[in-house]
């Protein structure tokens, strides 16, 4: 009797595993499907958006600001949130958990770093059918009204997958009070223009560094300050620096190419900064730009967000990312949404309508009024500086100039998305090691090569 029960239980478990527990897998969605741009306004439906739950409700507030306007168009549509932890390490976990539990949202939040994962894992559909339909109907002029490059950034195999809600661009913030104390006339200094170069930045850093190490600087309380907080381990900074030096992470065939003469040159430059005592490795020492202890800082935050830091409030301005060499690059990216491959038919058309509303002039204004502090992807709103009310006296062009130089980080697309985290980790470790200064530059490069080879070995 006991044996029979035992065998029956085992048989049931095996049956359950092999049949009942076959995991939920997303098939590759078709790139061609019928779309309709005229969704009935009386449609009753719920759209679920996956958003971050670890950003202090910033994204939720942005989207909530869109809801009243969207409900004017579709009064019976409910916007629901699926808030999950989103970080470099947790994004894939959050997406996987949603799929494995069959709670797939209709719209996935993503940015420059994560969209490749969504595409490669069959999570989002190509938006080309919608772009084609809109172009035919003449209802969406990407070329004329938008910074089209940000729509193209999510291109994979010649198809675009993500609609950006805003654009990010790395700029150089500077502390006006600290520069003034160091004797730099930041308003008239010929080195500080929207065309400034890396050499200009280095020259200014040297001047600041000399000041803070001088007896006068120490007496005035600037002894624990730094010239530059570069955030070299942030891919939006190290990627353009590497590219400007001609350094590549992977070769065209996918092999690790970090051990090049160009990388060595770049690494020596960063090590030189460290050895001259001008670079703050990270924020662990307590001296940061946001607490007023650093002269220059690379960041993509909008001025409104930067002004929230009381120690720097009202004492900063910005310049573009400095141009390096003959092929300068500026790090940039987007934040946006993709439509889930599991959302189909009229609901998918409705999701598209939501995205289209998000990038409309009205939608973008609502996002701005809802607190969006980075430039709009609409040319008119960006150039009119509508996106940063109260800060129009600052150099807001810093975010907009140099469009030809802008690049997003896509080096990890040469390999499977499951390698992305380890690839990024290897490069962050490399940049930190360069600014730590405890190992020789060549050893840092050798270790990075080894780490990258491990990262892509599947």
């Amino acid at each position, binding site marked *: 009797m006991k044996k029979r029960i035992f065998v029956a239980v085992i048989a049931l*478990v095996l049956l359950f595993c092999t049949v009942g527990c076959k*995991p939920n897998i997303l098939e590759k969605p078709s790139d061609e499907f019928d779309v309709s741009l005229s969704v009935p306004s009386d449609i009753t439906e719920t759209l679920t958006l996956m958003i971050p739950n670890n950003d202090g409700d910033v994204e939720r507030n942005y989207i909530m600001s869109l809801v009243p306007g969207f409900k004017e168009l579709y009064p019976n549509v409910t916007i629901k949130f699926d808030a999950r932890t989103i970080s470099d390490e947790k994004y894939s976990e959050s997406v996987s958990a949603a799929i494995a539990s069959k709670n797939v949202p209709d719209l996935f939040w993503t940015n420059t770093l994560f969209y490749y994962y969504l595409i490669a*894992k069959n*999570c989002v559909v190509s938006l080309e059918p919608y772009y084609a339909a809109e172009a035919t109907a003449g209802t969406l002029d990407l070329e004329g009204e938008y910074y089209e490059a940000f729509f193209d950034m999510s291109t994979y195999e010649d198809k675009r997958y993500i609609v950006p809600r805003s654009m990010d661009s790395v700029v150089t913030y500077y502390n006006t009070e600290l520069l003034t104390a160091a004797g730099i006339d930041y308003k008239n200094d010929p080195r500080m223009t929207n065309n400034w170069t890396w050499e200009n930045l280095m020259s200014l850093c040297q001047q600041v560094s000399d000041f803070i190490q001088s007896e006068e600087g120490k007496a005035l309380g600037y002894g624990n300050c730094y010239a530059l907080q570069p955030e070299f381990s942030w891919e939006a900074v190290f990627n353009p620096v590497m590219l400007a030096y001609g350094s590549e992470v992977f070769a065209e065939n996918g092999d690790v190419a970090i051990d090049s003469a160009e990388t060595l040159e770049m690494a020596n430059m960063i090590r030189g900064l460290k050895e001259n005592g001008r670079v703050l490795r990270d924020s662990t020492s307590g001296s940061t730009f946001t607490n007023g202890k650093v002269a220059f800082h690379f960041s993509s935050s909008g001025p409104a967000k930067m002004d929230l830091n009381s120690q720097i409030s009202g004492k900063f301005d910005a310049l573009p990312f400095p141009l390096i060499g003959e092929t300068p690059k500026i790090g940039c990216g987007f934040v946006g949404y993709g439509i889930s491959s599991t959302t189909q038919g009229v609901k998918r058309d409705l999701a598209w309508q939501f995205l289209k509303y998000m990038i409309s002039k009205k939608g973008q204004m609502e996002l701005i009024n809802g607190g969006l502090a980075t430039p709009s992807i609409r040319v008119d709103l960006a150039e009119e500086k509508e996106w940063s009310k109260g800060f129009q006296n600052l150099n807001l062009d810093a975010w907009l100039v140099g469009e030809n130089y802008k690049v997003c980080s896509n080096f990890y697309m040469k390999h499977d998305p*499951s390698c992305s*985290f380890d690839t990024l980790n290897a490069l962050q470790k490399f940049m930190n090691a360069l600014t730590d200064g405890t190992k020789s530059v060549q050893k840092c490069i050798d270790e990075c090569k080894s780490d990258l080879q491990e990262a892509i070995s*599947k």
Partner: protein
Amino acid sequence: MMTNAKLKKKLKNSVDGWLFVLPMTIGICMFTMLPIVQSLYYSLFDYDVTSKFDFVGLGNYIKVFTDSQMPKIVGNTLLFAVVNIPAVMVGSYLLALLLNVQLKGIKVFRVLYYLPCVLPSIVGGIVWSYIMRYNVETPGLFNQFLSKLGLPMSQFFYAEDVTALLSIVLMNMWGLGGGTIIWLAQFKNIPKQLYEVAEIDGASAVRKFFSITLPMSTPMIFYNIITTFIVTLQFNGTLTFAPNGGLGNNNATYTYGLKIYHEAFRRYNMGYACALAWVLVIVMGILTSVLFMTNKWVQYDD
């Protein structure tokens, strides 16, 4: 053969018992047996949780033995086991001997030594990452102490060599209280008459320890060796404090348990992670069998 009537009667009489064990049976089936069988099933597939579930047969198992990271990982795991198991065993045993003496207020010490075991491991990780912090500007407690003594600072688990693993062994000493409780329970089970007889015979404290306490503890020593051995091979505690997502600098703290976690939840190679887990089960099974075959030194009777 049991007749139907007898079977019905037996079932009727035991229905209460069945009802009592039913919740536990369901729980074990759902949360223990099902995942075990499921992981065996998944280990035969290239499964990435979202978009891939392709049958690969023994491909994942072959990969375990051809993975280029394996020599380093197995080396780290073995080194950790070789140092950690004796350190934990001897440390907790000596601590138990100290806490077994009859002193006023000894219970307070017992509680204090057990306290770290009730703290969440993540709290312990954070505390120890502060204590062992290697930063020239703001060194951790240990490095401040070393500096005061005029000694060079240590990188502890930020090091790229064996120092990182040894730091984790040192950190594990914090949780000795858990093993100590088991030893104390065993000491209480040793008949007092044995000590009384030894005292009448004029045995010294050392003689009593080697002739009574130690031999009488061997069943528990054996149990502790096996459990510590299993826990050590599965160890992935570095996740909470070591650099590079727990791998350490230059993979200095990359152990087998961490490899399973890394493949499952960082790279989403769920099939491969399941195969890694099953290989570990088999290895642990073989080594535990070896331990059982060589347990003649264990004294199960008085």
